[in-house]
């Protein structure tokens, strides 16, 4: 085990912890920006450090395609290759194959897919995924799990969960660098509490350095989403980090942290930046809107990032979606926003004012008091009184601030249940 996880403060289920990884000592809860191809789009590594990024995610599938894990290994690992001195996490590559490639198929052996280079059939086994990730050299590597497409329901979910458990043993056996890389197992089981429970128990038995909750953030209804998170965090060991995969909306992060999760990743903050949308305490600010052309205020007057200190909405309005600089500056702000959120979660838990922080967050996002029902339900389980943020207990207005994520994010099988 190449990590230390020390809980520094709690509020009910929520925890603030120090996560010591081979390359960096992190504070949780934390958000991990996605640097698919060995770079966060439009930002230098110095800027990422300035903003406070602690862990960056790399996508194994993309990195294996270009420049190739053998080359990365030969040049000293991904840290050295991209000159990132803090922590890295790589995914297994399986999800991306299933979601990005046609004709991907899963058998007991692994994920078969057509090579995007020459069209030949290829096979990604748990052993191969771990081998590639060993070459890349991230602080945290992810087990290959059985990825179920979002449209599928029924017995396939059960099969995928059991296969994920069988594959974890192959991953553990194949892992050559447990002293410097931490293998996280992924809890599967769709929205079925019984399957999730079996999977949690099975993984906990393996005594892994950390655990991820997979198969979420793929379009399931929000009430199902938080219930799975709450169930898994309750069943996972206290002294290990818990990572909810593919979660990146600020509201989701706050709710999951209240339920005892520690780590998150999503392409959303940088992707939405490239489309001209800024994250602000009130929700989203669309800089393309005509009203922004004459708005002399910064994106977020409460944000102390370089972009908010220097630039007006009016200037950013003329850059976004047209000039590279627009997406650079907006990505910078959006990641700053996510890092500030992570820090605020950590310090408010540490300083015993987590409920106040959550209430302040919800008041800003829902000034009319229309906090979605699923958030109210989740906060009840988290033991956080948010009644003062809610206009009326009967108000069932659904959240309107979250558009569906336009591209696949880290999801490992999702069931729509109505």
């Amino acid at each position: 085990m190449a990590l230390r996880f020390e809980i520094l403060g709690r509020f009910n289920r929520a925890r603030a912890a120090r996560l010591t990884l081979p390359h960096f000592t992190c504070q949780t809860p934390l958000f991990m920006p996605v640097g698919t191809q060995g770079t966060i789009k439009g930002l230098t590594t110095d800027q990422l450090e300035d903003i406070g990024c602690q862990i960056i995610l790399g996508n194994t599938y993309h990195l294996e395609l270009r420049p190739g894990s053998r080359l990365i290994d030969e040049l000293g690992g991904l840290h050295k290759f991209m000159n990132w001195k803090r922590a890295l996490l790589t995914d297994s590559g399986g999800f991306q194959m299933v979601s990005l490639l046609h004709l991907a198929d899963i058998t007991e052996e692994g994920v078969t897919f057509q090579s995007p280079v020459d069209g030949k059939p290829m096979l990604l086994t748990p052993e191969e995924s771990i081998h590639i990730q060993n070459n890349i050299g991230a602080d945290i590597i992810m087990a290959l799990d059985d990825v179920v497409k979002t449209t599928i329901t029924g017995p396939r979910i059960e099969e995928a969960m059991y296969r994920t458990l069988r594959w974890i043993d192959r991953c553990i056996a194949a892992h050559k660098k447990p002293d410097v890389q931490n293998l996280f197992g992924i809890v599967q089981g769709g929205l079925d509490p019984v399957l999730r429970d079996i999977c949690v128990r099975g993984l906990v038995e393996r005594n892994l350095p950390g655990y991820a909750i997979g198969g979420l953030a793929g379009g399931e209804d929000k009430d199902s989403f938080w219930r799975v998170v709450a169930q898994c965090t309750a069943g996972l060991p206290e002294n290990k980090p818990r990572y909810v995969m593919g979660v990146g909306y600020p509201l989701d992060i706050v709710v999951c942290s209240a339920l005892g999760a520690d780590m998150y990743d999503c392409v959303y903050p940088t992707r939405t930046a490239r489309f001209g949308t800024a994250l602000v305490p009130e929700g989203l600010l669309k800089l393309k809107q005509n009203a922004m052309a004459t708005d002399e205020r910064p994106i977020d007057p409460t944000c102390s990032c370089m972009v908010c200190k220097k630039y007006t909405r009016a200037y950013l309005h003329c850059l976004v979606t047209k000039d590279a600089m627009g997406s650079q500056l907006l990505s910078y702000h959006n990641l700053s926003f996510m890092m500030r959120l992570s820090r605020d979660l950590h310090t408010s838990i540490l300083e015993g004012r987590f409920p106040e922080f959550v209430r302040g967050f919800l008041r800003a996002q829902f000034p009319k008091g229309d906090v979605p029902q699923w958030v109210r339900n989740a906060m009840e389980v988290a033991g956080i009184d948010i009644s003062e943020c809610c206009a009326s207990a009967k108000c069932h207005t659904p959240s309107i601030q979250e558009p569906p994520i336009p591209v696949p994010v880290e999801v490992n099988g999702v069931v729509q249940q109505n």
Partner: protein
Amino acid sequence: MRFVVTKVCGGGGKARAGVLHIGGGIETPALLLSTRKGLPSFVSCDLLASLPLPDSLLLHVCPTHFIEGPPMKTISNIGGLHRMLGLPDHILVAAAGDSIESLPSSEATNKFGASFDTPSGRRLVKPSDYMELVSCMKPNLWASLADEVPAWVTEKRNKTSVDRTLRWLDACISLDAAAGANSFGFIVGGSSIEQRRLCATEVAKRNVSGFWIGGFGLGDDIEERCSLLNAVTDCLPPEKPRLVSRLGLPEEVLEGVAAGIDLFDSTYIYQLTMGGFALIFPVDMVGREMQNGLFNNDGGDSTKINLRATTYRKDTSRLVDSCSCFTCQNHTRAYLNHLLNVHEMLAQILLEIHNTHHYLRFFRSIREAINVGEFDVFRQQFVKKRRAHITAAVL
């Protein structure tokens, strides 16, 4: 703005070193960094701060980039371009056109104003429009509006261009609150020595603080350029700075300096960066090689490398070993090769930083060569080395 010539190369040479006093002092010959809507294409203000100072303070801004917005009133309310761009200490020099986003379209230009091809279509800019842009943006210096024409236009059209450019200069000065105190008078005249002389002489009579020499790099004959440039500078008073527009290749810069040019605006760095190139030519020839008598010890260098080439796939060296820029201090050729392969924007950010840094050092070397009275040797050696390499590459 105050300009002082500090050294002129001896022996009939015209190359000169000087200091442009705005805020602090900027030594010339110097480069104006090209911008897109006021900022370098890929270098944000925090990264801009890592470039050599004060060399990197001069920016060429195009008021015409803001035709689509923000509205002039908003820019004015924000406090002008310096405030809007978050660059309070930079020296912003405004001129209507550039070589990328706001190209002069001479066939659409008429007696009322100059026409530019912009990403949002063709736009006619009258002197009054232009001066309103200038007064709201408050650049440190501005060039007057010109009717720039390519080299292949008729003699008649070329004459019209000179007439209009002079008329618009008077119009701009009359509309300027400072009556031209911070202006660069625009000089055109195409490929006609006579028209060039006429235009330069007339502009020199106006209340301008410097000269913006345009109409080059628009299909002109490289063989004729030297005599045209000299014809212009011969007509200009020595105590005012001269900028030549669109001549940006290292050889062109050296040619301009030899003709007595002090300032250059150039999209060369942008073009290199977009092509995946990094400048690598030695820039410290004067400081080191000449003093050590190594000047003729030709290492067979080229001026630039294309990082898309597969030979850099595993190359863990820096772009330039001795370079102190952010890119060279932090990243390898192999990483840049990868970023270009996968079309990641960081490639352009890192290349623009290095190329800018490198080119500013080249300008510093030029100044050093002038100051030690060795500019002609410096120029000859540079061109010879470059030719030798090009010949070798062709063979």
